[in-house]
């Protein structure tokens, strides 16, 4: 019996979630009084294994196959490791790539899968905590199974830090390259442009609460009045109302301004991942239960169309007619 966590890396760097998986994994391994194994697949496996050698890791398995993530390789390698190690819990990242192979592994091994987990307790059966309905509630689940697959949300566990004394083993994994049905041809960076929102000291950020494209100018006017840079949450970019280089969040830019003013932004976890490092966070949102208030330092619970024009006037501007 063991707990197996699988590291994630991209373009030569381990991603933060790898070290958070180690923390979650060693807590769960302690609950079950068992070992923690970490697997690292493809890329600079030796360099990665050195970095993953953190306190609490017993064994690191390296799988030498290609440079970057390929879901066929990952799924096959993890399935073969599971056959060998028979882990009581398989911990994977709840990332875009994690969700590109975790359901396939769970399906192949016929194991229960719970995704986007924010809390885990082991011992007898595994109990997990999730958020649902856009973070408005938390739910707990009991997984009544000897084995399970869990994907963990990023930034919920602290990264494992101090150096460990894991043994490092090259896993013997046999992958039939001819069976791979997806070929990764490369990467593209998106969202570059004339404005770099990561450079801004003050961001005025607009979200779904703005309602329609024709209302965007009042937020632009506010940004102008404050000498701030305009940014946005995802739905605004999805709708084509602002270009992609303005998007703050998990799939956009991570920003750390002195002041971040979130206007009509509910604060979904993917958005918060991109702006929680701001020094001072101000939220203007009519819903007092919006998750943005969990991380805001200051808030105005009111209709943005009432507040923003007043604010513009405070600084000598004039709110545009909308």
């Amino acid at each position, binding site marked *: 019996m063991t707990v197996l966590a699988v590291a994630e890396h991209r373009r030569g760097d381990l991603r933060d979630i790898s070290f958070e998986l180690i923390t979650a994994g060693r807590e769960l391994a302690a609950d079950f009084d068992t070992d923690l194994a970490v697997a690292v697949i493809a890329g600079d496996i030796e360099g990665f294994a050195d970095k993953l050698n953190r306190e609490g890791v017993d064994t690191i398995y390296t799988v030498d196959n290609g440079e970057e993530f390929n879901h066929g390789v990952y799924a096959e390698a993890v399935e073969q490791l599971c056959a060998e190690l028979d882990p009581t819990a398989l911990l994977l990242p709840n990332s875009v790539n994690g969700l590109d192979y975790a359901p396939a592994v769970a399906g192949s091994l016929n194991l229960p*899968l719970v995704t986007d987990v924010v809390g885990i307790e082991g011992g007898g059966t595994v109990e997990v905590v999730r958020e649902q309905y856009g973070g408005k509630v938390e739910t707990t689940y009991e997984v009544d199974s000897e084995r399970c697959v869990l994907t963990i949300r990023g930034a919920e566990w602290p990264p494992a830090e101090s150096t460990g004394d894991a043994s490092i083993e090259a896993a013997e994994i046999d992958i039939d390259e001819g069976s791979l049905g997806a070929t990764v041809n490369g990467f593209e960076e998106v969202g570059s442009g004339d404005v770099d929102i990561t450079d801004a000291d003050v961001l005025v950020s607009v979200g779904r609460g703005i309602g329609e494209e024709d209302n965007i100018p009042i937020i632009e006017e506010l940004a102008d009045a404050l000498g701030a840079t305009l940014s946005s949450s995802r739905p605004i970019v999805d709708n084509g109302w602002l270009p992609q280089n303005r998007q703050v969040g998990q799939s956009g830019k991570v920003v750390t301004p002195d002041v971040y003013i979130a206007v009509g932004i509910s604060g979904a976890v993917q958005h918060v991942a991109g702006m929680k490092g701001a020094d001072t966070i101000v939220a203007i949102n009519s819903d*007092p239960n919006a998750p943005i208030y969990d991380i805001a330092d200051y808030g105005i*619970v009111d209709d943005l169309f009432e507040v923003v024009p007043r604010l513009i006037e405070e*600084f000598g501007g004039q709110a545009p007619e909308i």
Partner: protein
Amino acid sequence: MKVLVTVKEVAEVDDEFEISGLDIAEGSLEYDLNEWDDYAVEEAVQISEATEDIEVVTVTIGPERAEETVRMALAKGADRAIRVWDDALAEAQFLDIGTKADIIAAVAEAEDPDLVLSGVQASDDSNGATGVALAKRLGFEWAAVVNDLELDAGAGIASVHRELEGGIEELTDVDLPAVLTIQTGINEPRYASLRGIRQAQRKPLETESLDDIGLDASVVESPIERTSMYEPETESDAVVWDGNADETAGELAELLREKGVVEG
């Protein structure tokens, strides 16, 4: 060629809501087409408009109420719809990822599509896993979180962009048949036209029981049991200013002056 689109009617929770037992009280919920599925439907309809002889079929798991959502997908251009429902599904505490994938796989096996489009996730459960789980059951190839799609049906390849974190896209060729999970922003979902809404009333919408698709009630059995639902403790220590808009805007203005954001 046939494109199957998975469609879910999702529950949206009112700002003020109550929890009843292990779920949100029915009175606090409103229902709508899942946002991600709206993009998946649009992508399928655009493919059918660009190419001859493509049938777009939607599949949904849901009660009769969900037909309104399904009709909306038909009004936007899907040709035909299948809705799976059953007493065993109505009685289940919730449907886990495996159960949903098993049910949709049973429908997909009968339909034999070349391409399945599914939303990245449903806004209520946020599992983000049913599409890839479905692919595995069908023996199809797959790609998760697709925000650009070029289909080469002749070569049997879908060239996709997968939206990774941090503004990076992965460029990948996927063999068909495949399941692709569709990300918001991949297209601009249309509004249903009045003509489309009228036509949708005449399009076929079949209801299938578990028995009809070759499954039985055991498909809802799950080792995963929901044990509680609660409102998270608010972590908010935000200073929330009281008063009318003049007053609150004044407070914020003062803060911004203190922080040196604006002079004077």
